């Protein structure tokens, strides 16, 4: 499934003011790469490519190494993320309780795949490992809201509900 608009967004002009401010804050701190990247992600919701080049230049680190760090730690995102992050657990308990069907239904309804974001930047979908609430399997989360005993019906409700919420 295509994620084209989200990718296009990456190549668009990005206002680097916030990134520069984050860098200013940590500039003299030893080992400042992680806090800078975390700060940037907090500001932009992800780490846009132009900010990587900026960090490389200002902290005098190779862009390749920054990319290595960003892809090593799961906490970082290189693409814009949706306002609502839907996570569906595919851990053992949830798997046994039919998590795969839930996943498929989300794919179907949202027209995106795992780790992808809808073109309108409303939803990002992710499969995740055990969320630690196996009693409620199969389990889904939307941002901090938890949904237990998921069904196909519930998927539709979630998509409809969050699909209407304001984006701001």
């Amino acid at each position, binding site marked *: 499934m295509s994620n084209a608009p989200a990718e296009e967004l990456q190549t668009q002009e990005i206002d680097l003011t916030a990134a520069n401010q984050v860098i200013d804050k940590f500039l003299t701190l030893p080992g400042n790469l992680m806090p800078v990247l975390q700060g940037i992600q907090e500001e932009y919701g992800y780490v846009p490519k132009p900010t*990587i080049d900026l960090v490389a230049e200002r902290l005098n680190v*190779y*862009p*390749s190494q920054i*990319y*290595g760090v960003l892809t090593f730690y799961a906490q970082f995102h290189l693409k814009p993320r949706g306002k609502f992050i839907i996570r569906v657990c595919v851990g053992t308990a949830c798997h046994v309780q039919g998590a795969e069907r839930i996943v498929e239904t989300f794919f179907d309804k949202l027209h995106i795949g795992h780790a992808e974001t809808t073109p309108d930047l409303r939803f990002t979908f992710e499969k995740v490992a055990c969320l630690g609430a196996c009693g409620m399997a199969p389990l889904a989360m939307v941002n901090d809201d938890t949904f237990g005993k998921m069904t196909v019906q519930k998927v539709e409700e979630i998509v409809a509900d969050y699909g209407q919420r304001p984006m701001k």
Partner: protein
Amino acid sequence: MVNLTIDDKKVTVPKDATIYDAAKSAGIRIPILCHDKKLHPFGGCRMCLVEVEQMKGRLIPACTTPVTEGMIVKTTTPEIINARKLVLELLLLKHPVDCPVCDAAGDCDLQNLTYEYKVNTNQFTDEKFNHKIDYENPLIERDMNRCIHCGKCARICDEIVSFGAYTFINRGIEAKMGTEFDGPLNCEFCGSCVSVCPVGALVSRPFKFKARWWSLNKVKSVCSYCGTGCQLTLGVKGNKVLTTVYDENQGFHNGQLCTRGRFGYQFVNSDKRLSTPLVRKNGRLEPATWDEALAAVAEGLKSAGSDAVAGLVSPRLTNEELYLARKLFKDVLGSNNLDHSAGYAHSALSHGAMESLGFAASPSTVTDIQKSDLLLVVKTDAYETHPVLGFEINLGVKRKGVDLRVISDKKGKLSRLPKAKTYVYKPGNEILLVNALAKVIVDNNLTDPSAMGVAGLEEYNKSLEGYSPAQAAEVCGIAAEEIIGLATDYAKADKALILLPLGLGYPGHDKALAQALINLALVAGKIGKEGSGVLIMGEKNNSQGAVDMGVYPAGNGKGATDIIASCAAGATKALYVVGENPVVSYPNRKKVADALDKVGFLVVQDLFLTETAEKAHVVLPACSFAEKDGTFTSVGRMVQRVRKAIKPIGASRSDFDILNELSSRLGGASFADSSQVFVEIAREVAGYNGLTYDKLGDEGALVPVAVKGRFVPVAASPVKAEAGKYALVTGSALYHCGTMSRFGQGPMHVCPEGYAEFSREDAAVLKIQDNDLVKLTSAGAEINLKAKVNMRMPKGVVFAPYHFGEESINNITDGSPVTWVAVSK
């Protein structure tokens, strides 16, 4: 020292040695995959596992474990062999094992060790990698399916090259060696990563499917691009140079090369090479026999008469050839009108060092770089002119904590090194700045006692009046405190080395600048100590040799500028150009071209029909360095052997052959071969005394010098800016050297054409972006170049490289250090 026992052998090694080093010194081979003597230990592959009596219970990686007193090491027990087999099995599990189509076959550590350890079965099964192969550039193919994750490519690109193209990306089973955004490789293409890759994950594309590694004839020689003097090994088959073969034991640089040396050899077998002599008939260059062409040349040079004949001979030739050229002019034609490199690109050595030190060479050598405490790089980034010396600087700074200071009219790659400090002065004011540094030293009683005994000190001290840091600050645009700080640090450093890169692209005051720097080094007492002094870096592979062989005007002889002028005036009637391309590389293209159009008889001897050769009456096809025996003398005076790897291409003949035959046709001496000339050089040329080809061997030999310094005051006046104009400074593109690199695939991929670099501020004002075509105008002439916008250029300054024939920068330059240009879109 530490004593230990390895495989029952007693070994004594320095205490910072590893078990691997210790074994190696005792002639015991421990297999390695991720270790490289040039790089920081990594300890990732576990191929080098050994057993240590004192650490029983587990196997120890030899490459990362330091030796300790009394250690008892076993390198091949059945357990170790099994462990190594297991390492190999695991690597082979995901590796495609496509050796039949892999260019590394025969030179692959994985293949060789698999064979050695007889790993013909695998107890595991798994899917192979399925990574996309990077075919995006014409030089390096990256097939990460073959990668064994040794990390050497990333380490060399970081530690030595300081480019940092690679890193491990992603996690877990997805982890691989990759680039930023896992994109195609886009770097300097020095090929260092290809050289160290133990398998075929990184291979040279120009060599792909050209020959099996073991079928290559490997010939040791010297790179024919810049003056660094990198040794290289040519991979030859069927009279073709097919590749350069990496040999980690070659030269001070451990086999490292830059993109010119590594990927620039294609000019040798280029189909654009001249294949036959050409003689102008009815206004056109027509093929001719050698006999006809040489008869015409002999007649033409002789009939012009000794005053009216002149020569411009390239420092790309061997010492033997340059010596012959000098002899031909001086002894046979009776002329001193002989020069090279536009007359200025050697003057720092031939005149500057000569007057100030008593010899026309650097008092220091390349191995001083890493031994220094403080490096002062002057005028331009030594990296762009001499990349492998740039590697030495990188290593000095990163490994040995060398304090790097750059004074230049722009920033360069070296400016980005950790803790490096760059002082950007307004173009053309470098001598003024250097004098101000000296003034600080003198005024603050930092003059070294050794300077007291040097001739001319008093006069020199007086000459520094008017160069106070405050005055210099005003002119150079560098704060006075910075100037004082730099001068003080330089003076106080125990060992401080000045690096002065030269080149046709850096016209202006080479001689004066060299002298100002030598004065500075003398007053601070920096000459004559290891890791200290001045390294004047000639541009071409044999720039130092050309000076040593005296290929510049002696007595009343004319230098290059006068030769060109006298061609225009009709006073020079015959001009013999060997390997130089003045039309493109000398300042003021129109003046040079007109002069060459006027001269009655123009002979050009070259590999290619250059812009200059097109104007000739006779064109003689010469040979490349790969077709020659002889010697080059590098920066820092290292004489090294060049060895013939292939037979001359087509009907071409070596410059040696041609000069030798001309000499004998004109009644002069004739030599049997280059070694015979070298015997005479060893007799006649100071410093070369006693050298023989045998003595040079693979290592080469350092020409000794005896410093007899004296102060030669150098005056400098501030360069006046022209209102509304930009200061154009020219120079070398990192990937090119002279005009020959235009026939090398590597340099032409990375930098195919000229460009003009602007600061971001100027670009914003001029509303230009990368790749916009901009027009530079000066004195009525104009050229159009693509723009590059970046952070390294200061406001008001434009940089453009000189190598290219189209829209060549010498259309608008006239040999001054700064050209004031108007810029428009």
